[in-house]
């Protein structure tokens, strides 16, 4: 019992010092999605992640879709392949941007169409930083990037 308690205290100290060593927190910004054309069942969201310490995005979810997955788009010559990713490593001090033609968050089985001008919540779960919920702004279908700050 005593051993376990000591271990817990030690663990707390380690976490506390790790937290103190951090100069800031993991940040998610510029979250945007494409409006879905017609009755399209799948949507897509993109965003930027920045973290002072290495972390890993392990899952995503949103109330607007039955399922949200982290996907990557690979080109094999001229052939486009979309594949689910188990996670995405976020290196310390670098901005990782999910954008068209690369990694993206796939919203599968939308409950309704995503319309330009709307916004919706998206929760990202990181291995270390835990869950972050961001507001995603819906842009035009096929938009290439987030709209300038509104």
């Amino acid at each position: 019992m005593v051993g376990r308690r000591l271990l817990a205290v030690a663990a707390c100290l380690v976490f506390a010092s790790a937290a103190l060593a951090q100069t800031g927190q993991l940040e998610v910004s510029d979250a945007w999605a494409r409006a879905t054309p017609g009755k399209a069942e799948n949507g897509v969201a993109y965003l930027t992640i920045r973290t002072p310490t290495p972390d890993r995005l392990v899952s995503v979810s949103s109330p607007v879709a039955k399922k949200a997955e982290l996907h990557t788009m690979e080109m094999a010559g001229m052939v486009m392949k979309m594949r689910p990713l188990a996670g995405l490593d976020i290196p310390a001090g670098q901005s990782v941007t999910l954008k068209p033609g690369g990694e993206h968050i796939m919203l599968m089985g939308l409950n309704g169409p995503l319309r330009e001008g709307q916004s919706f919540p998206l929760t990202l779960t990181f291995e270390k930083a835990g869950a972050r919920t961001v507001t995603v702004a819906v842009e035009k279908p096929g938009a290439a990037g987030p709209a300038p700050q509104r």
Partner: protein
Amino acid sequence: MMAGNLPRRFFLVTALFAGLVILGAGAFLALSLHETPRGAAGTLLASAIGGPFRLVDQNGKTVTDADLKGKWSLVYFGYTHCPDACPTALNDIAIALDELGPQRNEVRPVFVTVDPERDTPEVLKSYVTAFDAPILALSGTPEEIAQAAKGYRVYYAKHPEAGGDYSMDHSSVIYVMDPEGRFTASFTQENSPEEIAERLKKLLS
């Protein structure tokens, strides 16, 4: 032993064949992207991509390769469950057409589904109206789609995913066909809408 080897050999041959097809298509396209003012017109390439097809448009009307003649066509194969590459291509086309000004009326964007199972004419109709361009959206039976894709050297395959869902692997290329229905040039996601517009202006002049 034989039973164990056969599927492996079959797989290898199939993979090799698929590889050759992709390489071949890549070589064709690399050649076609070579800057010539008239594109591939008058070259062997002009007849290597395209060919006869019989499909149905978003209003249920039959469309064949002959119907594409008389205007320039921008032909893209994709599917509506694809949220990344396909809307990017269609949006790039819409922006490029805007840059063309009045000449845009000489160009017809064509979206052919590689997922006829889910992309019925009705689904396609609601999909393409969201883009700022008058897109002709084509579907058909799996056989009809296969024939059209073969003519355009388009590779596609179903990729199953967890939960019974699937995505489609597919060639992501915008083909430029001249008013005679001959292959003239092509674009990929590497080309910006501005580049596409510039090239089209040269071809249309």
